[in-house]
């Protein structure tokens, strides 16, 4: 691949199911799964005369989602009918938004695993309704060989927000980072579960290539059927490689829809009848317009807190946490909140706090199955422990022991130090006495050291630590050992 010569241009569109209690236009439950065709009513089945009424919470969620990315909320919005025929869509039109979406613009700032950052503009986020679900009635449940399809309308009418991104993305990794940030943000806003495996997040990618430095866009292919972040990464990378091969082989990329084949690791042309879509959008006469006042916008804006990207940037830029650890924290909102309290209580000693939180405490949480935030260790107790460690009042071995005790009992780190007699001995005289004792008891090891086997130092330090029952300051012990051995 002549990567430096070609540049990929990628635009992502994704559909996200909103986590409301009820459906978009009726009072049926919005729940994943369940017995087929048991969560339906005259409205979502499109029985004659049934009329839709919009779910106020879905509209609020849209405003939250848009405002979190700095979108503009136009004062007027409306619903339109998008007309097409498809068996899993009971009305033969989908209620959607055409020219007056609830949110316009905005920017998604994201970061990659290696810590590099990027941003992608949003064109818009609009609100629509989901379709039913179809399965295929062949013996193996696949489309090929099926003579008929089976429809379950439980999902029909579930509120769906469609996020349309600008073609600002340049690689498969950036596309995944963009989607991960969207997912993290929507999850934290409480507007969606964003589970790709359950279909509450579905995405398509428009991919084209052009010569690096060119400003016009190449012909794009629309990639569908990507069911995980991993398949998004693989599908886009594979499609970029395919297009480069086509063009370098003297061919031309044609505008088409291509489906990702997970097993084969390639995209295939979906030779559906490629007539230009003609949806004949028009305003839905069953639904009155939506006005969003400045008061409502400000009320929703006031409920927003730090976004996952802002948190990541604060951890890395202000607290000096490395990108990987910052991501681990950001991916667990409860853990991040706990971490923030511990950092505040420890007077900003973020490095030491993060080492405990993602080290011993993460291990204990993992082993016990209890999340840190639900366990017995308080952020204040960890802050105490960090203070004891950084002032050399205890050594790292004692710190480990205290963490274990805090985990199983809770309480205060200082109290444990006193109770267990774990205070580090940094008194020169006291450690010197132990060092003398150890050297006297190990004449052979001392002789080895003098003969050049300096690696016995580890053994001697260990012996001093053991003799002090783990309480000696290890660096002081080493320093004294070196002094004494040199003097012999």
């Amino acid at each position, binding site marked *: 691949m002549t990567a430096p010569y070609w540049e990929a241009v990628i635009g992502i569109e994704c559909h996200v199911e909103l986590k409301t209690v009820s459906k978009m236009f009726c009072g*049926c439950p919005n729940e994943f799964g369940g017995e087929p065709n*048991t969560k339906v009513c005259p409205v979502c089945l499109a029985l004659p005369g049934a009329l839709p009424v919009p779910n106020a919470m879905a509209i609020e969620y849209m405003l939250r989602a848009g405002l979190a990315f700095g979108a503009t909320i136009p004062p007027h919005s409306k619903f339109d009918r998008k007309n097409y025929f498809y068996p899993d*869509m009971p009305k033969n039109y989908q209620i959607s938004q055409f020219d007056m979406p609830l949110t316009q613009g905005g920017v998604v700032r994201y970061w990659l695993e290696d810590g590099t950052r990027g941003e992608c503009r949003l064109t818009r986020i609009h609100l629509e309704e989901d379709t039913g679900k179809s399965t295929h009635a062949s013996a193996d449940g696949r489309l090929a060989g099926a003579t008929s399809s089976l429809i379950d309308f439980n999902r029909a009418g579930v509120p769906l927000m469609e996020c349309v991104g600008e073609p600002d993305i340049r690689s498969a990794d950036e596309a995944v980072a963009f989607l991960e940030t969207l997912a993290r943000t929507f999850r934290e806003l409480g507007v969606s579960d964003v589970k790709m495996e359950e279909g509450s997040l579905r995405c398509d990618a428009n991919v084209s290539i052009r010569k690096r430095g060119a400003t016009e866009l190449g012909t794009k292919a629309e990639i569908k059927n990507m069911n995980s972040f991993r398949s998004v990464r693989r599908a886009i990378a594979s499609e970029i490689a395919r297009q480069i091969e086509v063009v370098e082989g003297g061919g031309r990329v044609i505008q088409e829809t291509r489906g990702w084949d997970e097993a084969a690791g390639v995209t295939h042309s979906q030779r*559906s009848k490629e007539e230009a879509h003609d949806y004949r959008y028009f305003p839905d006469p069953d639904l009155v317009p939506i006005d969003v006042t400045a008061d409502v916008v400000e009320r929703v804006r006031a409920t927003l807190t730090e976004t996952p990207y802002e948190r990541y940037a604060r951890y890395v830029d202000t607290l000096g946490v490395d990108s990987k650890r910052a991501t681990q924290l950001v991916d667990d909102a409860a853990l991040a909140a706990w971490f923030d309290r511990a950092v505040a209580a420890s007077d900003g000693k973020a490095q030491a706090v993060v080492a405990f939180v993602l080290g011993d405490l993460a291990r204990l949480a993992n082993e016990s199955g209890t999340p840190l935030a639900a366990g017995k260790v308080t952020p204040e107790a960890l802050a105490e422990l960090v203070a004891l460690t950084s002032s050399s009042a205890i050594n790292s071995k004692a710190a480990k022991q205290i963490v274990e005790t805090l985990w199983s009992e809770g309480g205060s780190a200082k109290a444990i130090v006193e109770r267990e007699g774990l205070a580090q001995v940094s008194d020169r005289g006291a450690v010197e006495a132990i060092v003398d004792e150890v050297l006297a008891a190990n004449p052979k090891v001392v002789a080895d050291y003098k003969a050049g086997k300096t690696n016995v130092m580890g053994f001697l330090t260990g012996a001093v630590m053991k003799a002090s029952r783990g309480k000696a300051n290890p660096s002081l012990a080493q320093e004294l050992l070196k002094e004494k051995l040199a003097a012999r």
Partner: protein
Amino acid sequence: MPTDRIDIRHVARLARLALTDDEIATFGPQLGSLMTHVDALAKLDTENVAATAQVVPSRNVQREDAIRPETILARDVVLQNAPQVQGPYFRVPRIIAEEG
């Protein structure tokens, strides 16, 4: 002639109507006269009329996000008018391509 503005075969295809040539010959002029009738609206002065998508003067008709169990239909009722049923599902002719 207003029918010049309508590709009647295209419109029929969008509506999933299979029209014969005779029907196209009949419906073409009929649609044309409908268009002529609507053209009368174009003569109105709308200079000072705001664009509108709805003639009903209300706004923001919404409902609280709550389940209404009494509206949910029993499955045998849901499926009773289906041309074909298989188990708990509506059965339809094989779906050819993804859409929407």
